[in-house]
């Protein structure tokens, strides 16, 4: 399970709340604990479920954000956050929490920035989890 070096975010966009630049993509301690308490095979099943579920949630989130629906956006972001919390996908969790807060503040500029970063971060997470499944 190796993490590639992530490009720094574009400085021309406003900073997002609660997302430290150094936040890790994955919480390895959490993943190892899940594998230990259940089994490595179970962790892979869980990661596959996460990937499938969160991919759909992010797709829905994008549609909701464009409709500027505060409640639905906050709820959809919370769903991503919840799933990421359980598996230990730290940076995605922080980005989703940030999007939720900005949506509640109706700061749509930052919401859109957060959404872009969530989409980008999720692609990265997906690669890492796929690599984990293949034992790379």
């Amino acid at each position, binding site marked *: 399970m190796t993490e590639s070096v992530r490009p720094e975010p574009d400085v021309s966009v406003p900073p997002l709340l609660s997302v430290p630049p150094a936040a890790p993509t994955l919480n390895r301690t959490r993943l190892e604990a899940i594998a230990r*308490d259940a089994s490595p095979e179970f962790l892979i*099943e869980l990661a596959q479920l996460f990937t499938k579920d969160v991919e759909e949630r992010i797709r829905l989130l994008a549609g909701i954000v464009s409709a500027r629906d505060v409640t639905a956006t906050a*709820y959809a972001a*919370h769903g991503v956050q919840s799933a990421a919390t359980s598996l230990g996908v730290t940076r995605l969790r922080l980005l989703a929490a940030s999007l939720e807060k900005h949506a509640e503040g109706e700061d749509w500029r930052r919401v859109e920035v957060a959404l872009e970063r969530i989409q980008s971060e999720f692609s990265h997470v997906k690669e890492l989890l796929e690599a984990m499944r293949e034992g790379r």
Partner: protein
Amino acid sequence: MSTTAASAVAHPPTGASGPSTSSTGELVALVEDDPTTRKLVRAWLEGAGYVVAEYDSARAVREGLGPDTSVACIDLHLGESSGFDVMGYLRERDPELPTIVVTADGEVQTAVAAMRAGAYDYLTKPIDRDCLLLSVHRACERRRLVDRVKNLQTALGGGRLFESIVGSSPAMRELSQQVDRVLESDVAVCLLGESGTGKELVARAIHQGGPRKSGPFVAINCAAIPASLQESELFGHERGAFTGATQTRLGCFERARGGTLLLDEVGEMSPAVQAVLLRTLQERTVRRVGGNQEIPTDVRIVCATHRDLRSEVDAGRFREDLYFRLVVYPIRLPALRDRVEDIPPLIAHFLEKLRSRGQHSVRHVAPDALEALSRHGWPGNVRELENVVHRCVLAARSDLIEIADLPPDLRSSGEPASGPVVLRDASETDEDTVVPLRELEERAIKKALRVTRGSVGRAAKLLGIGRATLYRRIAEIDVPLSMRENAS
């Protein structure tokens, strides 16, 4: 939205350290809309021996929560509905069900609100496995204790329960003796009698009078359950066993573990279920529908029927081998028309029962009304009598039930007489002595104060009246000072 059906994963924890939190199959309701969290929490709980039923919304809980749930684990963020809604629903449905709420990290105020709303415990995300298992373990322990206290309270009232169903007639004295003979053993008792004769009350008395009284009493009415569902109700089912089986469900045999199982209207059981029941009784193990595991049973079986089971066997509708398993000790309950002398004390009992709920102040029945009630055939037996008494109380305009207060079909045969009849309590033994109600009340109050050593609160509870009422009564009667030490 229906209850969820995530793929079943149950890997026992390997080398996991932490508190001893294993379970013997208690049912945990997991209310969570995020499938990743559900799958993870389910695996942890199943690894510790719990049976998990998943619900992804408040609606799914309302539609599918089983009666045998030991603890509910609820995410407060449930999408369009709130975990607080689920808590409210559960509190109405089962006030003693412990709920553990799950909140996002940092939502301390929400957790505090949940605790104020009656949550047993709270956990924050990411959920820690050991914290989860410890909390669920403690909640289940609390649930067991509450159930045990309830069972013991019911058991302590067992004598009163039996008194309430035994009149002074020879038929009921014989019934009482028969019940006494079967209390201490697990002999299979079959209660035979018409509908409304009190078969379930006698079954409860057998349970409460025997060594299993601190265990659960579970009753299933086979006539009220479609044949297609009888097997699942009795023996439980695994998730996915059939269309609609979205959750694992414990059957009556598992729910009655350590106690008594009443198979009411056993004559209505389908032939297929009779075969499974026979195997269960022979092997003393139960297998859930769709399951492979043989689960040991530990129940006393009491069955009841209004049918002549022997005739059912002869007609080929009831298995003979099962008949011999179930009808080891048959007890026949008399119809009410065969013990009319019990009608006045039964009416007194029902009037007292309604009075204790504060629903009326009726104490007497006019002689012609009583005569009419005694002449009725009572095809619905004691249940019908109780309903009629309730109707009469609603119709009565004073503390006296008059002939005009009776339902029209019962009014025809009353003869006018000189004055109201004072109804005797079933516990009175001298049939010729009529004790004024005032005196009976005074005796009861003095006795209650004596046994509670003057505690008005406990005495009021025993008497089934409010504290204020008891204070008023004490002021009206001559209670010795020694008894009223705590009452002043």
